[in-house]
């Protein structure tokens, strides 16, 4: 990659606030670091990854609203976690966390455990208990 080939495809993902560094060849054939505001394929891949997250969050939200899942399931997706990770963070087995995703079990969760989940999701404990679904905002 020559210096003048370093991509500069801004895409609003970073609003021009972030530049990354690439190594590129200058006219004399030596390598030099060059900053770049982004490259189209990476922007596509990143956008696609966030779209996937958004889709999963929305699907889970619909299932929570339909009474099939508890808010734990929603917030797990919203914080980009999966079951093994969430279980590790909560200090529980995966089957236990899975149980907590059942609305009937969730209703009877103790205050300590609720507070622990709320801390993991960075939301107030009472919001979690009341089943409030704080909207997900993907980086724009």
């Amino acid at each position, binding site marked *: *990659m020559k210096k003048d080939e370093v991509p500069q495809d801004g895409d609003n993902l970073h609003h021009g*606030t972030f530049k*990354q560094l690439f190594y590129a*060849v200058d006219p004399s054939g030596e390598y030099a670091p060059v900053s770049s505001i982004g490259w189209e*394929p990476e922007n596509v891949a990143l956008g696609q990854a966030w779209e996937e997250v958004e889709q999963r969050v929305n699907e889970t939200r619909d299932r929570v609203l339909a009474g099939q899942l508890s808010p734990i399931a929603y917030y797990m997706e919203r914080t980009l976690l999966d079951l*093994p990770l969430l279980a590790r963070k909560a200090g529980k087995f995966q089957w236990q966390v899975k149980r907590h995703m059942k609305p009937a079990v969730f209703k009877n969760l103790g205050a300590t455990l609720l507070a622990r989940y709320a801390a993991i999701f960075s939301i107030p404990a009472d919001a979690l208990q009341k089943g409030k679904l704080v909207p997900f905002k993907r980086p724009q």
Partner: protein
Amino acid sequence: MTAFNHVQTAHCESGVISNMFRHYGLQISEPMAFGIGAGIFFGHLPMVKVNGVPGTTYRIWPGAIFSRVCKRLGVKMESHKFSKPEKAMQALDDVIEKGIPVGMLSSVYYLPYFPESYRFHFNAHNLVVFGKQGRDYLVSDPVMDTTTVIDPESLAQARFAKGFPEPKGKMYYPVSVPQQVDFAKPIQEGIKQACYYMLKIPMPQFGVKGIRYLAKRVKKYPEKVGDRRAGLYLGNIIRMQEEIGTGGAGFRFMYAAFLQEAGTLLNNNELKAIGKELTAVGDLWRNFAFSAGRVCKARAADTVSYNELSNMLLHIADEEEKVFRRLSKVKF
């Protein structure tokens, strides 16, 4: 407050090495650190899934570059892990109090200053904390263009993220750094090790063989996992290759920069020539990313395009094998 000379780099681990060692008077460029640490690699691990997507890596596992560079240059590090965040933060305070910049592992998800669109759960990000400003910590994050600050709560969360690999509050700092180092032998050892990892690991998932292994699997993505997942799988390959920290083309350009720098330093034209060849391979990787990006964007997976991508990878594997075979025969 400690003055810390922050220079933006491409990759966090080699960047922290370069910035930290310079603080102690040992000048080493980022590509040089990457090369001596034999950072270049390839691996495709379908079993290791990240959010349900098979993992691909273009560099050696986290931490390896650091330990190899320290060993080869004779730098002594002190390194600690912790069980409790309170203890970890106290230990950090104690060390920066003495004016020593501290490197640490973190998860980018919890770094508020990090570009939002990159904030996934990635746990092996290296950064340097070099002082305090009231409650907040002064951070030299090698992939950012300036120094920043972080609040103690976020930093504690980032240091104690769960998942793989688990940072466990790991922090490290040099206790003895030689001022003058002869790079000749470390360079040779680094190159020898890189060639071994790229050519000789007797498993199909790693090195040049790993690229062919990936090629075979890419071909079957549409029929095996369907349009949507095939697109996601491809997207992840692109991200691992082109996201911040790679220096472009999955570290290939950074390693080529190392070969050229080493060639100049040791007066070895063969190394320089191989560097140029690797640059050409890096351009092939970029073409691949470009085509893969187009396939991702088109969404509908057609077998023809996945076949083409697979062939591109096979071609890259052949060219990369030539480069590393030639590199393994270089006389010093």
